[in-house]
Structures are given as structure tokens and as C-alpha cells.
């Protein structure tokens, strides 16, 4: 497969602070005790896509990621980790490595994607349609990767609108896309576009999964011409979608007025044929579209992941919690672990006190110790944690080397590495940054705690 893969691994995202820090870039944030980036890399490996350029924002972050990747994927993947300046944007990152792209097509994956949509299938769709770009659309997860900090739960009821897309009748072509803040506005669609396709499906229940296949030359052209573009999602993709109906000029000759006078059949116009054939066969649109070879046409296609596929982006703290819960829960096949009969994973080296219960959809990594009468529900506990007695942990993520003393209650929270939580502390919907110490008996609600 003549495909190169670019993984946009990001840097130290502000949105995820205090979870990410200089020591833990976003790519290495543990999701069910595995660095987030490993989900993408495993997925690529499974599709036999091994030629990978990984772009990381910031030298230090790049060094950390490089260290992880080279140790873990040494013999399995050919990964080149490239550092780019921070805040360069996704398009900027691509522009920075544009020279290194040589294959015909480029697969661009966001490094924070946790999904089981096969990149190989996307690549195949892309090739089959001869597209300029193929974007993966997936159904918006029900819990909603909300951008708001956790705790605003009422949003979960109604799926968030992340994109508004317009598809053709066959659902193969992307005719319209709205992303970002425009989603909340009224939808404006050019009539000419509707006229060209006859019928357009507008959907707001799909989201752009940040997995794209680009034609290399098209991508390079756009990056070169539009120097101000910073974001693939907000600028490059909408630009390609906008410009796809622009065709080569056709002459004014060759119009025939048919005998009955009912209609007219100008022979040389692609668009005309397009609209005429469309009525006869639904697939004709595609053929017509495809037959317009070269001529500067850029086809924008979509690969719509089926509803059963899991597709989530780790771009907010809420999403981080969701993904952790899902990976050990409903999307457990992603974690790569085998579950016990209790539907949880407890490492053999864990030490559990008496009357301590570990509920389903939980995960305890190696070397962790729990005291007596603890209760863990739907939570992930990292390596070598020491947890005292009478501790309740619900719906939370506890990373590695965390010390939790007796009588603590932790709910809906994320606790980073090396945190110490003293006796009887109560945390609800909190994020605790690495190395922080939560004082005894304190009560925190919906707070972000980090070392100054």
C-alpha cells in the first residue's frame, strides 16, 4: 500500500491540564494504563500501515514520545518522530513535514484517537474513489465528548453537534461540512451545489473523526497555496469541500434542442449530464463524478464508520474519563487485555485487603495494594498504588504511584502520578495534577488541583 501515515500527536494540550504536563505529553497520557498514542499505533499496525511520521509539538515532548515509541515499537513499526514548534496547528504541522511526504496518498491520523475504525478500510475507500480527500465520519458518541469540564453532565443527554455534513445520495461524497463554532449557526448551502447533485443529505449526528486520507499532491498544493491555514479540520477540509465542484471550463458549443422540445441536451457539459443521468440511476452521480478525470476536480469522499464502531477523541477531560471508562467497559476489545469472569482486570501482583470489592469494569494494574473494606467501581487504578482501608473509588482514574490513605472518597475524578491523598479526603469531579498532595479531611468538588 503506497500510503504514508502522519500521526499528529500534539504536545501538552492546555485543555487537558493538569493531566498533561511537561513530563507527560498528551500522547503518553495513560488510557487504561497504556499511553494514548499506543491505541493509534496498534491500530495502524493491524492495518499493516507501518511507514509512520509522528509529529509532536515541542522538543521535550518529542523526546519523551520518541523514547516510548522506540522502546515499544522497535521491531514493529517504522516511526519517525518529528518535533515542530508549539501552537503550529494541525495544518502547520503537516506543512512542516510536507517535504518528507513521498507516497501517493497520505493518511493523517490524530494521535488522540481511540477507535476501532480500520485505517486500512479508509485507505481502500480513498483509493477506490480516487479521491482528493477521504474523511472518516463517525456517529457522535452518546455521552458526548463535551468540551466543557466534567461535571456538566446534563449535556450528555443530547448528543453534541460537532459537525454538520452534507452527503450525496450514495453517501460517498462529502458536499458540505461545517465545523467549529459555525455548527451552532444556521446552515447555509449553495443552491448550485444542490442543483448539481439534486438531493443532499444534511446530517448533524456525524462527527469528523480526524482520520483523513489525502492525495499527497493535493494536500501539498493546498498547504502551499493557503499559507494561513492552520487547522485541517476548520480550514483545509472545508476548503477542499468547497472547491470540489469547480470543474474545468467547458465550451459553449454542442447544445442540441431535442425533437419534442421538452428539454435540452447540451452534449459537452459534464454538469448537464450529471443532472440528467442522476434521475435515471442513483449511481450515475458517482460515475459522472468519477469520469471527470483530472481537470482539477477534487473529489471529497467520506468513509462513514458504522454505528457499532467505537470512535472517540481524547480532547477534553470529560472525554478522558469517558474513554477510560469505555475501554475497560463497553469497548473493552480496544484495551487489549483479557477480562476476568467478573468483567474486570486485576493484575496478579495486586494485593487486596479483606472485604475489599472490585466491581465490574475496573482495572488494577500491577503492584497496587489495597487495604480492607475498599470499594472500587468502574475505575482504573495504575501501577504501584498504595490504597488504605475504607477507600471508595467510583468512576475515576487513578494513575501510577498514587498513595491514597484511609477513608478517602474519590468520585468522578482523575488522579495523576505520584499524588498523595491524605486521610478522609473527599474528591468529587476533581482533577489532581501530578505530585500534588491533598490534605487530610479536605473536601473538593469540581476543582482542578495542581502543584504551583
Amino acid at each position, binding site marked *: 500500500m503506497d500510503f504514508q501515515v502522519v500521526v499528529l500527536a500534539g504536545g501538552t494540550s492546555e485543555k487537558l491540564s493538569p493531566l498533561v504536563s511537561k513530563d507527560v505529553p498528551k500522547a503518553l497520557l495513560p488510557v487504561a494504563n497504556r499511553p494514548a498514542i499506543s491505541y493509534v499505533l496498534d491500530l495502524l499496525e493491524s492495518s499493516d500501515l507501518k511507514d509512520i511520521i509522528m509529529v509532536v509539538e515541542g522538543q521535550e515532548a518529542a523526546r519523551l514520545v520518541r523514547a516510548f515509541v522506540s522502546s515499544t515499537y522497535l521491531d514493529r513499526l517504522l516511526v519517525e518522530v518529528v518535533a515542530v514548534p508549539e501552537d503550529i496547528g494541525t495544518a502547520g504541522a503537516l506543512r512542516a513535514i510536507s517535504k518528507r511526504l513521498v507516497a501517493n496518498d497520505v493518511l493523517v491520523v490524530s494521535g488522540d484517537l481511540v477507535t476501532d475504525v480500520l485505517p486500512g478500510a479508509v485507505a481502500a475507500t480513498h483509493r477506490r474513489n480516487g479521491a482528493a480527500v477521504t474523511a472518516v465520519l463517525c456517529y457522535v458518541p452518546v455521552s458526548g465528548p463535551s468540551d466543557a469540564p466534567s461535571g456538566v453532565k446534563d449535556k450528555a443527554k443530547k448528543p453534541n453537534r460537532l459537525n454538520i455534513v452534507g452527503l450525496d445520495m450514495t453517501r460517498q461524497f462529502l458536499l458540505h461540512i461545517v465545523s467549529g463554532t459555525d455548527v451552532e449557526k444556521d446552515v447555509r448551502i449553495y443552491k448550485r451545489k*444542490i442543483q448539481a447533485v439534486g438531493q443532499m443529505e444534511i446530517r448533524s449526528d456525524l462527527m469528523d473523526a480526524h482520520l483523513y486520507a489525502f492525495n499527497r499532491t493535493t494536500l501539498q498544493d493546498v498547504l502551499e497555496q493557503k499559507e494561513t491555514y492552520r487547522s485541517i479540520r476548520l480550514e483545509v477540509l472545508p476548503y477542499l469541500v468547497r472547491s470540489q465542484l469547480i470543474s474545468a471550463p467547458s465550451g459553449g458549443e454542442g447544445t442540441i434542442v431535442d425533437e419534442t422540445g421538452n428539454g435540452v441536451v447540451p452534449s459537452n457539459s459534464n454538469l448537464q449530464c450529471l443532472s440528467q443521468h442522476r434521475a435515471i440511476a442513483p449511481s450515475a452521480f458517482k460515475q459522472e463524478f468519477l469520469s471527470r478525470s483530472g481537470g482539477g476536480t477534487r473529489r471529497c469522499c467520506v468513509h462513514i464508520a458504522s454505528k457499532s464502531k467505537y470512535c472517540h477523541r481524547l480532547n477534553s477531560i470529560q472525554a478522558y474519563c469517558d474513554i477510560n471508562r469505555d475501554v475497560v467497559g463497553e469497548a473493552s476489545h480496544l484495551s487489549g487485555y483479557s477480562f476476568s469472569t467478573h468483567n474486570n482486570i486485576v493484575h496478579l501482583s495486586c494485593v487486596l485487603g479483606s472485604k475489599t470489592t472490585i466491581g465490574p469494569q475496573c482495572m488494577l494494574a500491577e503492584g497496587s495494594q489495597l487495604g480492607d473494606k475498599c470499594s472500587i467501581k468502574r475505575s482504573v487504578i495504575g501501577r504501584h498504588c498504595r490504597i488504605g482501608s475504607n477507600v471508595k473509588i467510583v468512576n475515576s482514574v487513578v494513575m501510577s504511584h498514587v498513595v491514597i490513605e484511609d477513608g478517602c472518597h474519590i468520585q468522578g475524578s482523575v488522579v495523576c502520578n505520584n499524588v498523595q491523598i491524605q486521610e478522609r479526603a473527599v474528591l468529587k469531579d476533581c482533577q489532581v495534577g501530578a505530585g500534588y498532595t491533598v490534605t487530610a479531611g479536605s473536601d473538593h468538588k469540581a476543582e482542578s488541583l495542581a502543584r504551583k
Partner: protein
Amino acid sequence: MSQKKSRGGAAGAGDDAEDLSRSPLQAVLLADSFTLKFRPITLERPKVLLPLVNVPMIDYTLSWLETAGVEEVFVFCCAHAQQVKEHLEDAGWTGQPAAREMAVTAVESHDAISAGDALRVMYGRGVIHGDFILISGDTVSNMSLKDALQEHKDRRKKDPLAVMTMIIKHSKPSILTHQTRLGNDEIVMAIAPETKELLYYEDRADGSHLCVTIDKDILASNPTLQLHNNMEDCYIDICSPEVLSLFTDNFDYQHLRRHFVKGLLVDDIMGYKIYTHEICSSYAARIDNFRSYDAVSKDIIQRWTYPMVPDVLSFGNCHEVKLHRQGIYKASDVTLSHSAQIGANSVIGNATSIGEHCKISNSVIGAGCCIGKNVIIHGSYIWDNVIIEDGCKVSNSLVGDDVHLRAGAIVEPGCILSFKIKVGKNVVVPAYSKVSLLEKPSNEDSDEELEYADTNSGVTDSPPFSSMRSNAGRPAVPSKDDDLGASETGTSGVLGYIWASSDTGTQEDWRQSIAPIPKEKLQEMQHAVSVDDDNGSEEDLNNRQYEQDHDGDSEISVVEDDDYTKFEKEVEETFQRALDGIHEDNLILEINALRLSYSLQHADCAGAVFYSVMRSASVAAQSTNDNLLKTTADALAKWKDLLRNYTKTVDEEMEILLKFEEMCQETTKEFCSLFSKILPYLYDKDVVSEDAILRWAEEKENADEADKVFVKQSDAFIQWLKEAEEEDDDEEE
């Protein structure tokens, strides 16, 4: 009494469930289109009685309603109500309730001026008790209502707010003409794919808005929706009684679609909803204008509307019509000369005689017509008792009852000859003319739907139009186009008034006429399409909007180019395309559009266009100066009209001169040495006037030495001009 009954109609919502099962299926047929599209014919006869393949339109509608199982029809008559009632009587629709399964009642009202008024009258009568079918009397269909009705009723049971089901059908819009083959504008509809609820409706989807805007709330409640441009509204609606009361409550509703449907969708009155029902295999179409008259006629002849076809439909005293090969229908006693050629898809009515060597194709000829020798009729509709003398030629036109075409008359495509018109010998009726014995009513209101009804007043109090070529008061005067005068042998012209096309008419003339769209128009449109596309105007526009949208976010740093340079570049590109053969008028249009979009002055245009012309010349010449002078002269000669279009004032001419100077100094230095040679040429071709040149010279008087180079260069010419001017002055004195 009417009050009591109306209460019954309004209260329908409550006890509907039982009501639906027992009330007979009713229909309201509007025997008035409330539009002016069929004028001038409709001044004398209501639209619903116009013959469609020799059968009045309303008979198609009524017989469809009968076959569809409607039990009671209220025919709402407005204009020419008497004629409609008489016809209903004659054709046996009313009067003999025993003979028919369907009871037809005529409802007459003279003050209704819109469909909304008509429905308010119906509400007042209180005769509608349950679900009813709302249809206008110019609809041809053969669909079965069963499924649609069932759907409507089921929906009503679940959701009493579903008040209307609209019948829609796939159509075949053409991207070029932006209209369907029925000649009406394309419709953009948004439909929820699961429920088939109508969420958005826009007719007149012409160029007035570039975009379709869908409200965010619609999308919030419907995660997916289908945006259709390929659907046709059949104007057959299944309505619940609430529709009538809605019209009464909202007394400003006039138009069914523009007010009622839009009102329900946009204003969200009481949460009422409209649903759609798509028909696939059956036929339904409404005759809205002359083009749809033509299209539907052809569909009938080609039997898409079976059983609504000439040989099956027989009304009252109609004689038997037989179908022959190639879609030729002939009535029983047609007198046909042996040498006459009847082409495919033609209908010839009863007691019509056709002379020797006639050629008739794709046409419908009514009853009692008399057609002479060597007549050519193509794609036309000849109604009853028409006399066409020898050697006439009629193409793609509509010829009304009792028209008399004298020998050698030629009716060009797109004509409408109303009743009893007489066309003189060898007269050419120019294309797209509408001729009537009645004068065009002058109190034309721009609001078209308020017009149709008051025909009587319209005719009487109309002072003669200046553009009407006739003497006031005496309509028996030859009327002709000035440039046609030469081609006419000119014994007598046309008896009647040629209607000047109204302000809106020019576009509709060819869009909605019977004649096929002329080739040049198609080419124009095709050009427009391709031109639009290759210069990416949509994208640019989009971009601009996009950037505007993001102003607040300031995440994109837009490097704003100088507007004028951009404009100049675009003009040049446009001009380049013009060199490949766009018509000059279009070029002017495009440049004007560009000017507007960049909000620049007329003078800027002059400069930019001039720049483009000169550039093209310099590109063509490439090398030597002689060559350049020659190509420049050629280019100027070729585009002088274009330039003149922009040089209406001295200021604009000055702009050209300044531009020329600037070019010589900066961009295309080749012209530098030729300035003085080209300047007289510009003067010669009337691109710049002497006033402008002299003023330019004057202004430069005080300028820097460097700026004066060209003034000096062309000193001789300026002197000559000055002298010439003085001479002129002398002469005047």
C-alpha cells in the same frame, strides 16, 4: 345556518377519530389559478376551461378526482364563474346527481382574489367536515390517493398536528436553466427522511439567493434531513379541516405555498406540521404556465397520464378519437388530404380539414379547423375553429379559438394568439408576442396574485400604452415591429393588440413559453455555469463569508489584498474568457457584477477594462512595435463598444487616460513609445472625447516633469484638437 355549520367544521379536531371514518371524502377544486400567467387568453376564458389536448383542463382534474374515490367536490369559481358553471352543467358534472358517483357543487364568489380568500369562503360555507383534497383545476394526474390518504389518516391519529400532506414527485431539473421542464422555478425542500415531514420549502429558487439557509433549530430537532432540489410539487394537498380555520385565523394568508406553507414552517403556528408523500410511478403535474401546458400536453399524448388520454377520455358530445401509430390521434371525421404529412405525436380534432402538402408535427389541432395547402405546423397548439390559409407557418405557438391566419402568415415561436385574432397576408408575428383583441389592462399590480379576478375593470379603464402599437380605441390596426416593417409585404397586419411584455416578462418570455429555449440562451447559460465554476466565484464568495464569520475569532489572519488590484485581475481574467467568445453583453454584465461585489466606482471599471484590452493587445503582439500598434488598433476597434459602455462621463474617460499613462510608465512599458500614436486612435473610436484629452492635458500642466512625458509626446495631437475645437467654435459662430 352557515354559522352553525362552520362550527362543525372547526370543531373537527376533537372528534376526528370517528369523524374520519364516516365523513365522505371531499375535495376543494379551485377553478381559478389567481395568477396572470395565461393572460391574455384568460381575459376571455377561465384558465380551467382552456383545452388541453382538446379537453378542458378541469375535466382532467374532475375525472381524476372521480376515479380517486372522491365523493363530493366543491368547485370554487371566481373569474368567469358563469362560464365555469355552464361548462360543469354541459359536461354533465353537475345537475344529474344520480348519474355520477361524485357530487359536484359550484361555489361562486367574486371578491376572492387569492387561494387564501377562496378557502376562507369555503370555511364560511361550513361544508367541509373532514379531511379534504385541495387541488387547483389545472392539475392532471392519475395517481391513486389511497396510500396517501391512509398515511395522512394514520399520522393524524398519532399526531393531530399533522394538518397537511403534500404530494411530491421526482423531477428532472436542468442545471442549466435552473428550472424544471414544467417551466416553473425549482423548489428546494428539506424533508426529514424518516417521518417525511416537510421542514423547509422554498419556491422561486432562482438566483435571488445564492444559498439555502436552514435554521439551526430545525437541525437541532432533526439530526438528518434530506435537501431536495429534484422534487416537484404536484400541488395536490390532503388537508385536515384545520387548514381552513388556519386560513381564517390568519387573514393575511393569500398564497397556498408562499404564505400558508411558509407560515406553518417558519412561524411554527401552534406546532402544526406538514408532511409529504412521494409518488413514484404515477403522474401528477400542474399547468402553471405555457411551458408546462406544452410539457403536460406532450405527456398526455405520450400516454404517461393513462387513463387520462385522448382516446379514453370522452366527455359529453365529444367524438371518438382513435390512436394511430406513432402517437397520432385522429377524431372520426377528419378530412385529410392525401399529400398532407402528419408527424408523430399529433392530435387532430373533430371535423377538421387539412389541405394538400401540409406538414404537421408534434402539434394539437382542435375541432372544426380548416387548414389550407402547404401549411407547416410544428410544436403548436391550434384550438377550435381556426382557419389557416395556404402557405402559413406556425411553430411552437398557441393559437386560440376562431383565429384566422391569412395566406402566407408566419407565426414565430413562442407566440400566443388569443381568441378571434386575424393575421393578415404574409404578416410575420414576431417571436414571443402575445396578441389579443382586448387591450392590456394598465392598472397592473406587481403583486400578481391579486389580479386575475377583476378582469372586467381591467379592460375598461385602461388608457393605451405608449408601447402598444395601435391607435387608441380602435383595435383594428396593423401592429408591427419597426424592423419588421421592411420584411412585410404590408397590406394589413395583425388585428388586435400586441401586448408589450411587462417588466417581469422579459425573463419569463422565453422561460415559460411554449417554444423551446433558444440555443443562444442555452449557450449563454452554459457559459454562465462554466464561467462561474472555473473562476471559483463560489469559493471566493464562500471564503469571504467564511472570513467574515470568523472575524470575531481572529484565528485566521487574512492578508487583505488591495481590492482594486484584485478587481483588476478578475476583470482581466473575465476579459480573457471573453476573447474565447463570450458575448459582449454578458461580459458587461459580469464586469458590472464584479464591480458591485468589490463596491467600486464606474470609473474604476473603465480603467480596468481598458487595462485588460491593452494587455490582450500587448500579449497578442509579443514583439515589435509595429506589430503592437496594429494589434492594439485591432483590439480597440473590436472592443470600442465595450469601452464606450464605461466611458459615459469625462471623468471615466480621464480615468482611462490616466490608466494608460500608468501602464506606459509601470506595467507594460512597450506602450511607452506608442502613446502618442494610440491616443488619436482612442479619440477616433470615440473611447475618449476631446474634452477628456484636453482636460487631461490641462491637469498635467502643473505636474512634475516626469509626469508630463506623455503630454509632451502627444503635444501635436493636443494642439490639433485645440485648433479643431476652435474651428468648431468658429463654425458655430
